[in-house]
């Protein structure tokens, strides 16, 4: 992976969906003027059919579009596990619709014609959220991989430690000696690449819920 490619890959990308060509074009121009890359789609279907690049970014959706509406698209994406931040644009302020959109995780809901700065702010916020989301996802992936290397006993000890249980008690619960508990514990800390209990806790927190809730 070259440096240039790596930089492009990290550069945010806004994806605009609007049935009106002039609006698409103008919004793309606006983003371009502040250095945000964008690609445009004339309809929701077009977007769904395209292969989306793996770059931080956001979706800008017009609510009212012939065919699949913006809200429909949001639902469709959520159901297929894609959680990219969405900024909605609508021709008229429909409160019920905006509430629904925000509940479903929209970053912002803007009424056309939106001021250029408001639009750029919303897009920037959405991109920032996506970058944070992607970073969190990276961390999570790393600790999941490390967690996978633990032995079942070490996993039991890990759960007990993050629950704040004393070594003596852990030994009693698992019916092993306190010395053995200490051995498992240091091995586990090493495998999880953490130096302190605080660090271990944040690593634990980044793990997906199904692991944390799962049976030991």
């Amino acid at each position, binding site marked *: 992976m070259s440096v240039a490619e790596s930089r492009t890959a990290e550069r945010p990308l806004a994806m605009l969906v609007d*049935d*009106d*060509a*002039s*609006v698409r*074009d*103008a*919004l793309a*121009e*606006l983003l*371009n*003027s*502040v250095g945000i890359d964008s690609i445009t789609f*004339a*309809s929701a279907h077009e977007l769904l059919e395209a292969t989306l690049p793996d770059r931080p970014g956001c979706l800008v959706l017009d609510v*009212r579009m*012939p065919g699949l509406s913006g809200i429909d698209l949001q639902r469709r994406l959520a159901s297929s596990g894609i959680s990219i931040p969405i900024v909605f*644009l609508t*021709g*008229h302020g429909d409160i019920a619709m905006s509430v629904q959109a925000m509940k479903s995780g929209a970053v912002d809901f803007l009424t*056309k*014609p*939106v*001021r*250029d*700065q408001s*639009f*750029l702010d919303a897009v920037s916020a959405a991109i920032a959220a996506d970058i944070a989301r992607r970073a969190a996802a990276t961390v999570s992936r790393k600790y999941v991989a490390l967690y996978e290397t633990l032995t079942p006993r070490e996993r039991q000890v890990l759960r007990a430690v993050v629950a704040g249980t004393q070594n003596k008690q852990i030994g009693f619960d698992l019916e092993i000696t306190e010395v053995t508990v200490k051995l498992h514990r240091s091995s586990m800390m090493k495998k999880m690449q953490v130096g302190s209990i605080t660090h271990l806790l944040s690593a634990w927190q980044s793990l997906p819920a199904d692991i944390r809730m799962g049976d030991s």
Partner: protein
Amino acid sequence: MKLPFLMQRRTLAIAIAAAGALMAGICLEPSGLLIAVTAACICCGWKKGLVAVAAADLLAGAILFWPASAAAEAPVNLATFVATSAGIWLLVLVFRSVRFYDRVYEGMRPSVADIPGLGWFAYPDGRLRFINPAALSFVGISAEEMRHLMDLDDVSWFAKFIHPDDVERCLVNWRHSMKTGEPVNEEARVRRHDGTYRWFRDTAIASRDERGRIIGWYGHTQDIEDQKKAEAALHERERELRLLVDTVPSLIWLMTPEGLPYYFNKRFVDWAGVEPGDAASGIGQALATYAELIHPDDRADALALFHQSFAGGEPLSLKYRLRGKDSWYRWIDSRVEPLRDETGTIIRWYGVNLDVEDEVRSQEALRLADERLSRALRAASLSELSVSIAHELNQPLQAVVANAGAFRRWLSADPPNFEHAGRIAEKIIRDADAAAQVLGRIRALFTQTTDHRNLVDLNAVITEVCELTADKLQSSNVRLETDLDPSLPATRADHVQMEQVVFNLVRNGIEAMQVVDAGSRALRIVSRCRGDDRLEVEIRDHGPGLSDLEKIFDAFYTTKQDGMGMGLAICRSIIESHGGRLWADNVDGGGASIKFNLPIRATEAGAEDMKSPTGSVRSREAVRASPGTA
């Protein structure tokens, strides 16, 4: 000895007279003449009798004073003879007529027994004297029993044959007749031998002698049971009819041939509180009363129609408000029909008034509801329209705003990027123009005032649009066929809007055919008259046809990549605001056909529906029944 013939009697009388006269001549004894005088008096009448008396007197004088035998007492004898003959004459004079009368009627007077039907005879004091055999067998008594009844010293001998309920009345009448001599005429139920009662009419008159004294009562009793039954049935039917007339939930009234009301049924009386009114109680009064009941607003028109109907003898049906007893006016449906005799002359008019207040009210309520609904619909389409206007305007505005932001940023960049800025400025101008166009279209849509409606030749509109779209037709490889009716009349419409509609439909047609083979792209525009009052325009393409013939007229429904789905919705609202209709069909063999029609109107009149809220009598004239329904 009976001598029925006059000749025999005369011959005998003459013989006796001659014998008497002969005896007097032979014996010279005048008394023999007396028999001749008597015979002459009886047979020849009193005048000739008088002559005979005089002759006999002279003859007696001659005999008595005959010299050969004249006696001293001759004058006395003559005087005796004269007196005797005069006495005989007088006696015959007095009794001859009575005897004659008796002789004539003796044979002719019918016997009570011979009276057909049931007859009876009573003494002047009311006692029974005789009942004829028919009556005896009817009541079922023997002659012996009748004799027993006759022996009763009682006027109420008939009581046992009369229905107990009628006895009292009959006795009173019977006594009254006996006291005054007035004929008896009454109806009573008489018991038959089998115990059943039948109605009889009893008539009896007093029989009087020549001096006017009542000598008896002759009675005749006639069976009137069937008549009575028929009468009762008639009464019953009449009663039922009246009951029907009074019970039928309509106000019924009768009028003279001149149209003057003279009868109102009970319901009418109860409903309107009018006097029952019969022929006797002032006809003019009744008419005035009726006219007063009609609502003042309807009165003149209704009366005019009534008079017209009465004059022409035509049935009438009209609605007006009539005042009820409670002083409230209610809508009624009034129908009037003449009854004619066989010669066609009107005998009377029947009037039926139906209370249709509730009906009228519910119609009114329905109409109001309808109005509210259409208002709501208008409001709904207005809000829909405002949404689409917002959308249509927002798009170019959004583009302008976004482009302007980019424009400013490129200019304020370090260094400014004029090339980019210039390119974006172009776009801003283009988007602003688009916004202006939207505004223009909206303005055209909302200036649908009739002031802008002029006589429009739709053929000319179609031709103009075809010219305007000639470039597009050519570049889209669409062949244009037109079939315009040269006799298409002009109609009052908004020229710009008509152009807009035709333009939209032509453009839709062209765009629909982009997906089909270039060789078969043909657009056909036809104009024609539909009946006397409509003209129709059809725009037919050879595209793929329509999947939903109604939904295409909904706002925001589109089949096009870059359409908003407003074109047809707006077209339809324009056509409908002109009183026309716009619809779509699929054509056999492929393609869609969009048609619209418009009423042919040369003037403003007729543009508004003639729909008055309450509907006056005048407008009801249309419901007048035709004479053929009489």
